[in-house]
């Protein structure tokens, strides 16, 4: 009897500066398998489809349930998390590649520290007075909470940036993830008090004005965050800010 297998084609790269190459794999089929289960199988039996002994493929992963954002990669050309990529639902051979907009560390691992740096630039936080007990937070309607909650589910996975034609490896564009975070913090009653600082950041180089309105970001977001809505809102807020700057400064 022919045992059922899963076929994979994986783009590999040993070092950041070395040349990528492709390898093919065949792992035993198990029900409910996702792409990560296949990669784990390659760790346990590090052989290519034609039996060559190799270093196991490396990839990033942690939670395996699509809340940490770590295991993002290109699967059959589409950027997504590999934990929720169920083998039964995708075409074989399953083609795996690292994200293309970030420097490759090794194999399917990339360095996404640029997104975190941009979060720092955008001052994506609520500037609280301190951690001591000074009582309740601001009263807030549940509808505002709901609006913020959707935005705060962003796991900094980078899907929207990978999909964005404007975001390239070497330009300084911040991209939808950052604009949406600025909106999240500007929506908070305390965050609103410092909204100008955040707006100034995204009005500068690599900011919202560079958005080409391709709308690829919103389609790629695994958490269905209304990114184009965020971009539109930030467009409005920065326009007002620009006007205010002209009139008052």
């Amino acid at each position, binding site marked *: 009897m022919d045992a059922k297998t899963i076929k994979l084609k994986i783009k590999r790269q040993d070092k950041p500066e070395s040349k990528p190459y492709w390898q093919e794999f065949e792992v035993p089929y198990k029900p409910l398998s996702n792409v990560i289960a296949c990669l784990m199988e390659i760790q*346990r039996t590090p052989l290519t489809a034609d039996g060559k002994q190799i270093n196991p493929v490396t990839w990033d992963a942690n939670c395996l349930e699509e809340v940490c954002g770590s295991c993002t990669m290109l699967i059959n050309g589409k950027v997504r998390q590999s934990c929720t990529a169920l083998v039964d639902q995708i075409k074989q051979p399953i083609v795996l590649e690292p994200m293309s907009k970030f420097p490759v560390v090794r194999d399917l691992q990339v360095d996404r520290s640029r997104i975190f740096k941009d979060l720092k630039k955008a001052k994506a936080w609520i500037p609280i007075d301190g951690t001591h007990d000074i009582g309740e937070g601001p009263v807030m309607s549940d509808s505002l909470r709901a609006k913020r909650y959707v935005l705060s589910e962003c796991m900094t996975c980078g899907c929207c940036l990978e999909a964005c034609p404007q975001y390239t490896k070497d330009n300084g564009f911040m991209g939808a993830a950052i604009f949406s975070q600025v909106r999240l913090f500007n929506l908070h009653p*305390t965050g609103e008090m410092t909204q100008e600082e955040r707006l100034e950041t995204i009005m500068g180089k690599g900011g919202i004005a560079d958005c080409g309105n391709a709308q690829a970001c919103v389609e790629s977001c695994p958490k269905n965050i209304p990114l184009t809505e965020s971009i539109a809102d930030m467009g409005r807020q920065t326009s007002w800010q620009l006007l205010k700057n002209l009139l008052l400064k």
Partner: protein
Amino acid sequence: MAKRKKRIIVIGGGLAGLSAAMKICEMGSEVILIAYQSLKRSHSVCAQGGINAAMDTKDEGDSPEKHFFDTIRGGDFLAEQPLVRDMCHQAPAIIHLLDRMGVAFNRTGEGHLAFRRFGGTLYSRTAFAGATTGQQLVYSLDEQVRRYEHDGLVQKLEWHEYLGAVLDGNGVCRGAIIHDLRTNEIFTLAGDAVILATGGPSQVYSRSTASTVNTGAAATMAYLQGAKYANGEFIQIHPTAIPGQDKLRLMSESARGEGGRIWVPKKAGDTREPLKIPENERYYFLEEKYPLYGNLVPRDVASREIYEIVYNQKLGVEGQPMVYLDLTHKTKEYLEDRLGGIIDIYKKFTGDDPREVPMKIFPAVHYSMGGLWTDYESTAEGLIDHQSPRNQMTSIQGLYAAGEADCQYHGANRLGANSLLSCIYTGLMMAPGVLNYASNISKSVEDVPSSTFDEARNYWTERFDKIKKMDGNENPYKLHQELGDTLMENVLIVRDNKTLEKTVYAIQEIEARFKNVKCVDTNDWANPAASFINQLYCMIHLSKIITKGALMRDEFRGAHYKPDYDLNQPSDFDPYEYIDYLEKKNYGEIAEDAFPPGHLDYMRRYEENNTHWLKNSIATLEDNQPDITYEDVNTSLLTPRPRKYD
């Protein structure tokens, strides 16, 4: 010369590590934050349902004292009472802080915090942000830490692994040995104190709700360096998880807190679609057996009952180890708002929509109540002295532990939504004490000879060189799976000594085979294999602690269930009889007919059992094996009594 700032090394970027880092920076000291991956990816993001604080916003009569009682009783009286009481009293302030930091907590019509029910309590005590509360809390703390990074107080070393503590000639922790996971370089960091906020060890089981980083290696390394490891045998099995190949994904207790019902068809092997099975042919076994708490009995109780239904009564859905968790009676809008995140996860992984069909779930390894033994200090009034350098310090001076890596807060069974609380509480609470320790230590880290650091670095460089040269015929990932399967099969919900004895030998065999491991990756850059082999070594030691602890503890307490030592509580027993019994005992002899038949005997057995076993098990390393001794638990505030939830 200006006095330099104190420098604290925090290992781990989850809730405990971030809380500690934030508080330490706020107090004006520097933090080096070490994380295995980028921050925001830590396992704390997997927590779903919420975080407990008794704020009694619904006038149900809740209070921090009731929260304290529920937590202690939920943990079968093994948790450290003064600490738990302090935690429960701090909880409302912690929620307010998180709210001010911008956590999108669900709100009431008037715009205040909303609370929901969770297991092991009768009160609505759980604040929540949809069904991704852990993720939301991690993000908000991460943002505050990023703010301190922006201000120059935090230095983050992401993609770095903690290998061990640098100990000076007196066994005092003076820093950490760090492994750069990209360059694979090994170096040391000097610090005034080191905090291990490194999470739990569920990866010692082959399938659990844990993330891949939860190997418990850092805490185990502390044990291998001489620290005490407490209550390792108390592993929480969460009643509801989604079956899967690579992991068992959590299905939050909040599904039941929001009205989810657990049931199986009354007829074994019933093949009808679940919604075609009429109400009277369904067995809502938790609701029937526990009318008071129903589906919200504590986790240890629920997991045992599901196990009983599936394996002893053979009533699992489709004859498989699964039961239904049913939300279909709730409106779609309500479910989307309150549980959207977990419903999507279930749908993504199974293809079924919980809004349309009942979910199929089964218990899974979830949390370790035990961990590194940590200290604390009380004031004369019996309250926690928040300035004490002893708070959260392990038995190695200068080495601290917080969050799931510690052991004091959950006893023999953790209540749902208490883990987020204990992680943040420990992180915040320990900060003043850690800084006091750093300020008052008699010999500063600058006075430690550099040879101490050189030796530590050389030891680890050599150790990793040796690991990289390992060239046997065992694949480390396969061996890990075997170790995990061994624990899954033998040290889970129902435990017995014969099986545990065999397991001790099985682990010994795996340990012997470990010597024959092959380092399967030869790359000299970003090579994860050597690091994993080192973690596997730690996991083997940790599984010895868990298994030996379970073998030696001849009783039934919380998550540690040995049917042979079940005290068989009479079904009509009332826990307050026991308080009555203790009082009567104080006044002299008790008439044999003072209580309903069988009750007096049961209470005597209970009391006798507690004199032996109401103790923390403490593992220390002796000749490469865990040596287990027992230490008293502080029960000065609440009298231990039998648990009962029906």
